[in-house]
């Protein structure tokens, strides 16, 4: 009897922490109606300097609209997971930033509210970025600035070798070959088996007339053949299949690559290494006279459906404010991205001359989801699988796309 009493107490004590811990944790969400005083915001600018630069723009809009903001930044890798999590727990923020190729997929779930509902003016924006943010004829978000890809080159190395920045594929191959010596490669790009690899391949594929709706076309295969030739000839490292764009930048900064395919968001990092003198040109085309078509990158600000109409209306105003002319120029200048209102291009280039080639590239740039919409991720997977197959010598460029498409 005595013993069992003791045992009961001991067991009860053992259970206690479990029961207690069940009580703690799990805060409550806030629900406010009527007057809107605060807006919650989620974005993925979690690294400096972007984090504070974006904060400045957000603060400016908050002051203009007379609201306080509650911002959360998450790492880019976890962003969509976070969005899905918050969607299922009904705690989506009032203003949500999305990477532009994700907008249509999220809009398709019914989780975003169309901006036309709030009479947001979407005129004057570059067509590509509107296309990316449009689902079923409705615009779901606005991007203040965008980015794209170009070729960076190391001025000193090119001058020393007497090489001009390439404009066509033949010039690119010749220049890369000439610039390769010792442990220095002519060119670096990212052929990694992620969406980054597909994104880097697009400008070559699109400029050559290839299209994501038919990845088995000869134009697409030719673009892959160019990459394969660069690797097989030794002008690019075989490691490109494992390099992210940040790795590519590291190679360029270390002087191990004379040219690289990369975007303007790398400029702040490049400016930290003043020894490297660089400039940029548009992605080369196969034959002179063709138009260089690069993909549009950048983030779109959207208004998720939270069920609070007053807040959603305020959030729409906020989204409109982030993309105002003033904010576009300020963000573009600080972050080395291109304003999305086409009318601002000239003024922007006069303010930030380093961005000339990128601004030109953006004018003709295409969105990744423009044609395929929410099916884009599948095509992107086929593209990076094909890149891997051909650059590792497991398949010819044409067969690579067939094999990759087979799953």
């Amino acid at each position, binding site marked *: 009897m005595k*013993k*069992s009493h003791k*045992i*009961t107490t001991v*067991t*009860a004590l*053992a*259970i206690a922490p*479990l029961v207690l811990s069940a009580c703690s944790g799990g805060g409550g969400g806030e629900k406010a109606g009527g007057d809107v005083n605060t807006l919650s915001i989620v974005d993925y600018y979690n690294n400096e300097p972007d984090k504070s630069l974006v904060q400045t723009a957000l603060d400016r809009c908050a002051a203009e609209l007379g609201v306080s903001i509650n911002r959360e930044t998450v790492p880019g890798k976890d962003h*969509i*997971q976070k969005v*899905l*999590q918050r*969607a*299922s727990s009904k705690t989506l923020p009032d203003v949500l930033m999305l990477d532009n190729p994700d907008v249509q*997929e*999220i809009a*398709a*779930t*019914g*989780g975003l509210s169309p901006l036309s509902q709030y009479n947001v003016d979407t005129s004057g924006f570059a067509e590509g970025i509107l296309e990316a943010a449009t689902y079923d004829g409705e615009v779901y978000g606005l991007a203040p600035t965008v980015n794209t890809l170009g070729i960076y080159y190391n001025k000193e190395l090119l001058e020393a070798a007497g090489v001009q920045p390439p404009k066509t594929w033949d010039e690119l191959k010749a220049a890369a070959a000439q610039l390769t010596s010792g*442990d220095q490669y002519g060119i670096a790009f990212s052929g*990694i*088996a*992620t969406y980054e690899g597909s994104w880097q391949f697009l400008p070559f594929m699109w400029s050559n007339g290839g299209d994501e709706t038919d990845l088995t076309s000869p134009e697409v295969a030719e673009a892959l053949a160019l990459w394969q030739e660069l690797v097989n000839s030794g002008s690019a*490292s*075989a*490691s490109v*299949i*494992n390099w992210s764009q940040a790795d590519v930048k590291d190679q360029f900064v270390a002087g*191990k690559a004379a040219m690289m395919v990369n975007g303007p968001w790398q400029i702040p990092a490049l400016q930290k290494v003043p020894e490297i003198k660089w400039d940029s040109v548009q992605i080369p085309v196969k034959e002179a006279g063709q138009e260089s078509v690069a993909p549009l990158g950048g983030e779109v600000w959207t208004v998720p459906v939270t069920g609070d109409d007053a807040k959603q209306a305020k959030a729409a105003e906020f989204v409109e404010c982030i993309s105002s002319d003033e904010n576009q120029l300020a963000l573009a200048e600080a972050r080395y991205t291109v304003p999305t209102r086409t009318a601002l291009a000239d003024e922007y280039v006069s303010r930030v001359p380093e961005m000339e080639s990128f601004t030109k590239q953006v004018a003709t740039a295409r969105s990744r989801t423009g044609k395929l919409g929410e099916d884009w*991720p599948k095509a992107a*997977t086929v593209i990076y*699988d094909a890149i*891997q*197959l051909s*650059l*590792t010598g*497991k398949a010819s460029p044409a067969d690579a796309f067939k094999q990759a498409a*087979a*799953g």
Partner: protein
Amino acid sequence: MNRTQDMQGTTAGGHVSLTRTGKSVPAAARRGPAPETNKLTPRARKFSREAVVRLLFVAPAALYLLLFFGYPVVKNVTMSLQDYGTKTFFTGEAPWVGLANYVAVVNSNLFGPAMVNTALFTIGSIAGQFVIGLALACFFKRRFPLNNFLRSMLLLPWLLPLIVSSATWRSILDQDSGILNQFLAGLGIISQPIPWLTSPTVALLAVVLVNIWVGIPFNVTIMYGGLQDIPDELYEAASLDGATGWKAFRHITWPNLQPVVSVVLVLGVVYTIKVLDIILGLTNGGPANATQTLSIRSYQESFINFEFGVGAAFSNILILISLVFAVIYLRANRRAVDD
């Protein structure tokens, strides 16, 4: 443990004494309902109290298992039978699709290679870890200066976060500027740099090598403990009979280490078969899908393609395979305890 056994003892004792008293009761009275209930009431009360106590002992563990193992496993199984995608998170709708996800998994071109890679990765890793681990454990059994210090240094790979080690190994194994290739070239062992992480034929080997490095501390630690349990007298007696060195290992160490060996191997398999972080960090399943394993497939289907149903199906197959080894482990463990 002791407490429970104690309690079982009392229960058994109580039963015996009760039956004895029962025997002394006349047969007619025993058949009568009234005295039977009279007799049973105190027993039932006692029995129920003991049952409650027993239940309370089990409850915390049961609750924990249900919450943290039962729920995820059940959720994973149901998820694998649903079309669970991005939309589900917004609408809460996940239509039942029966076995369609499993059909998609088995029919995907990567399923076969992933199975083969999982097997090669597991067998290669375990073989390497075990042989090197055993050799090192035997080595550290001797007494020599700095033995303890060196043995604790050996734990280092275990203490590093796997993401850190895989990032470090990625740069060590780099084809162009990696220190391993430069080292091998400096020794004159290789003339051409080895494409550790860039060639589909070599990448799996590279990943296995890194995983062996990660697993050695575990193997050494467990087997060193096992070696300590082998009495020195056995070796002394054997050396009198002329069995030293290899013979001593073959006839004393190996048979006496058997229970520990089986535990190390089976635990090793269960740990290795689900390895994700090392492969993600080193190759991300590439190049050209050469290092795709079941766990990588599961991760990529769920968190890259957001096909959570297909991802769950992959991971259920993985759980099933692990389960087989877990059962083997439990049996081996019981045998080890019996021994």
